[in-house]
């Protein structure tokens, strides 16, 4: 499965590259639209402020155009674009003298013992200590159209945008973009252990946002 997906991705990338080199604006626009939202969230791990991250992403695309003629597809187009993004973002953060190594930020965000769910939802003593004290709604009864609705996507995005910046970068690369964990650790320079904690907390926050969204919907029905 993974093999066939890789081959399909390579074919698509060859196709995109050919279109770009022909000067096809739609192909360039589609590429920019496809990657810019996630690139912006990842850039915010380095530079924090959204406005600065957007400038970094714009600079990245301009550098992509400059390098496109010489791009030999030794890596995937996506890997190459994100490598340029990382360089631009690091340089920008250093210029602003705000650069905190991501390793430190990640360790900081991963510290403490957070479950990812409010402790109020569990009994805190007695025979049932640590067991659920409130119901966990079943989502298999939720109508499919609610689970794939635009409102649900918005609720999910709001939750991701509200996350601390390293959690936001990790969940973007792992779950939205589908990168393997090793690649994410290497790209962000975080340890495997911290990456797992950040992913857990980010996914738990996303789940909580969906629970709230679906719960509000159920009350309205």
């Amino acid at each position, binding site marked *: 499965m993974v093999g066939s997906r890789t081959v399909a991705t390579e074919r698509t990338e060859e196709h995109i590259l050919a279109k770009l080199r022909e000067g096809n604006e739609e192909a360039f626009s589609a590429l*920019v639209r496809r990657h810019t939202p996630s690139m912006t969230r990842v850039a915010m791990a380095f530079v924090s402020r959204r406005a600065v991250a957007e400038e970094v992403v714009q600079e990245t695309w301009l550098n992509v155009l400059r390098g496109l003629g010489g791009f030999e597809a030794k890596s995937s187009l996506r890997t190459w674009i994100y490598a340029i993004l990382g360089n631009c973002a690091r340089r920008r953060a250093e210029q602003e003298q705000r650069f905190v190594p991501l390793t430190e930020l990640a360790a900081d965000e991963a510290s403490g013992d957070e479950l*990812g769910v409010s402790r109020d939802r569990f009994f805190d003593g007695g025979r049932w200590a640590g067991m659920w004290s409130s119901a966990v709604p079943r989502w298999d009864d939720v109508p499919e159209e609610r689970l794939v609705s635009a409102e649900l996507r918005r609720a999910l995005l709001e939750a991701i945008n509200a996350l601390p910046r390293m959690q936001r970068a990790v969940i973007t690369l792992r779950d939205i973009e589908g990168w393997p964990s090793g690649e994410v650790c290497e790209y962000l320079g975080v340890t495997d252990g911290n990456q797992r904690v950040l992913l857990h907390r980010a996914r738990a926050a*996303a789940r909580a946002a969906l629970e709230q969204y679906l719960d509000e919907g159920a009350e309205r029905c």
Partner: protein
Amino acid sequence: MLTCADVVRLITDYTEGRLTPAERRRFEEHISICPPCRSFLDQMRKTVERLGELREEDVPPAMEQHLLDAFRDWSRNE
């Protein structure tokens, strides 16, 4: 015996295949007898599925225009 709070704490490592065989066995034993934890596991899996389907296309209009102009210049000069 794991508590429900333990299961919540371990759930990402479980879905990522990062538990030791012994931890995995204890996790699955708990899940097999605990409907709320089964629902929670299902919620986490559905959340990850939805995240994988998020495809946004929002680009600030000024950025998009600037990049399209740059692309036109680039393709003229290539």
